């Protein structure tokens, strides 16, 4: 016993007696608790409430339990089915364009040419400013009589009369996509750029010494190396695009004749516009379920991709 005492440095023993050290687990929970409680009140509890409301016919005053009636209505509503497909089409098209443009933008920003610092600053404004304000600019651009796009098209003789971009079903939908891509591209660009800059120069130099062309290096080194970032950016922007509300609301309010109504716009119109809280809640639950399913499937593929490209 005495030998042990001699082995231990004296100071440590004194210290443990003198001060009380809180167990790490408890201290960590104390640090996390405020944020967690806040989120529970403002996000988790409303989520539970949404779920409950979706089984009622809640309106401004009063609510009755109606079971699965709201869901049954949605299941039989062909307009709602169309909205679901439109939302996914909206999401895939917009995210695809954002990734392609982001990849092009990042490659340009990554090129070792003079002026790229300025280029990088000029790419970012759509990401920094409030979406609502950028959309006001687009609203004017799309105006058939006074906007630049239609005006230039007429000047150049592409069309005879004014083009009201937001007045027709097809053009309104694609115009909204363009604006959504405009809002989302800068962030994708910057994250892909950061990923590209993280790729080791040695790889490029080795390939260069072997005589690999620029395009070959891009295809065989850059793309595989940044693949994990591409796929996680794709998921993030997919979720944001799916939930994109302000752009559509400001440009078209979901019109003309529902052509730009995605699930989120439909939910907002039903719940806030028409005060049908119960029916709106059922739509919100559908959104949550679809997004969760989508994310799960995506995560599954993400793991495969990461394994394939040997990411940690």
């Amino acid at each position, binding site marked *: 016993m005495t030998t042990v005492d001699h082995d231990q440095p004296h100071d440590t023993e004194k210290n443990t007696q003198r001060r009380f050290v809180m167990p790490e687990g408890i201290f960590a929970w104390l640090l996390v608790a405020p944020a967690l409680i806040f989120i529970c009140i403002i996000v988790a509890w409303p989520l539970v409430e949404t779920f409950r409301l979706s089984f009622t016919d809640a309106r401004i005053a009063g609510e009755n339990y109606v079971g699965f009636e709201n869901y049954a209505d949605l299941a039989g509503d062909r307009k709602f089915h169309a909205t679901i497909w439109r939302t996914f089409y909206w999401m895939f098209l917009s995210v695809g364009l954002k990734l392609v443009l982001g990849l092009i933008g990042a490659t340009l920003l990554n090129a070792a040419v003079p002026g790229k610092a300025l280029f990088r600053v000029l790419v970012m*404004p759509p990401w920094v400013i409030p979406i609502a304000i950028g959309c006001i600019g687009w609203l004017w651009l799309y105006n058939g009589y006074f906007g630049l796009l239609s005006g230039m098209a007429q000047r150049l003789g592409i069309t005879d009369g004014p083009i009201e971009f937001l007045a027709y079903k097809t053009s309104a939908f694609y115009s909204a996509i363009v604006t959504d891509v405009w809002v989302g591209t800068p962030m994708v660009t910057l994250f892909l750029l950061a990923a590209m800059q993280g790729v080791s120069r040695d790889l490029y130099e080795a390939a260069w010494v072997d005589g690999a062309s620029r395009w070959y290096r891009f295809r065989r080194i850059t793309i595989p190396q940044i693949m994990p970032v591409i796929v*996680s950016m794709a998921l993030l922007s997919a979720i944001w695009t799916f939930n994109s509300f302000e752009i559509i609301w400001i440009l078209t309010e979901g019109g003309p004749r529902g052509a730009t109504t995605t699930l989120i716009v439909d939910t907002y119109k039903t719940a*806030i516009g028409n005060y049908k809280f119960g029916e709106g809640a059922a739509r*919100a639950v559908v959104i949550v379920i679809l997004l969760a399913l989508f994310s799960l499937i995506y995560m599954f593929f993400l793991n495969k991709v990461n394994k394939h490209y040997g990411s940690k």
Partner: protein
Amino acid sequence: MMDRYTRLQLVGIYAAAAVFLTFILLPFFEMFMASLRPLEHLFRSPYQFWSDDFSFDAYRQMWVTVPLLGRYILNSIYISFMVTGMTMIFVIPAAYAFARMDFPFKNATLAMFLGVNMFTGAVLLIPLYRVLRTLGLLNTYWAMIIPGVAFLIPTGIWLLRSYLEKIPRELEEAAYVDGANRIYTLRRVVLPLALPGLIVVGVAVFIGAYAQQFLFAITFNQTREYQPLPAGLYEFIGYQSVTWNEMMAAALVGVLPVMIIFLFLQKYLVAGLTAGAVKE
């Protein structure tokens, strides 16, 4: 060398960059042009690209048309500052715990925070409306601040956590050995070291808060005096005519605060925000 481009490649790069930037900057250009045109000229058809009666009158007149405009801009800034302050108070301790400590259900809790990113305010508006009504916060600044904080906490935790993980542990351990307790270590050792990261996350939250006000403002707040700029801009859509030129001018002036902050800090901001993406 490897990075050298032929003349043709250089032309290609700059041409592509020009096209890219045209797309990005076109709406700003259009807003600026519209803000310079007198109202009657704005509605002139056929479209004229250039005209000789451009003026900055709208930038003067807009304060008269919408007397509360200055107030709206200040509201936007005030709300964003409050959101940023509150978010950081929640984020700093939580991010530290996630970066440094082991505790039961750590990964599940982190996943839950990140899961919040899957929902937008729009999905939760109805119950959120009721929660805010119960708390008596509808039609106050808090109706826009509190939901804003909730939706920025997860991103804040995520960003700050990856920053804190890069700070070497040795310094904290040295402080422990010297007998400092946990709170003291956090306050006097970790936070000063993390200051650049705190600034990056703070600015990111501020920009996020400035950007996200529209939905909460139009849904939870009917009090004109508290309205932030994106919602206040709709006042230019008047009873008789829409003064588009003034609306564009006001929108451009309204984004100035956040653009200025951004321009000064963009280098650090981008490096900090994308650090998490590169690491994995």
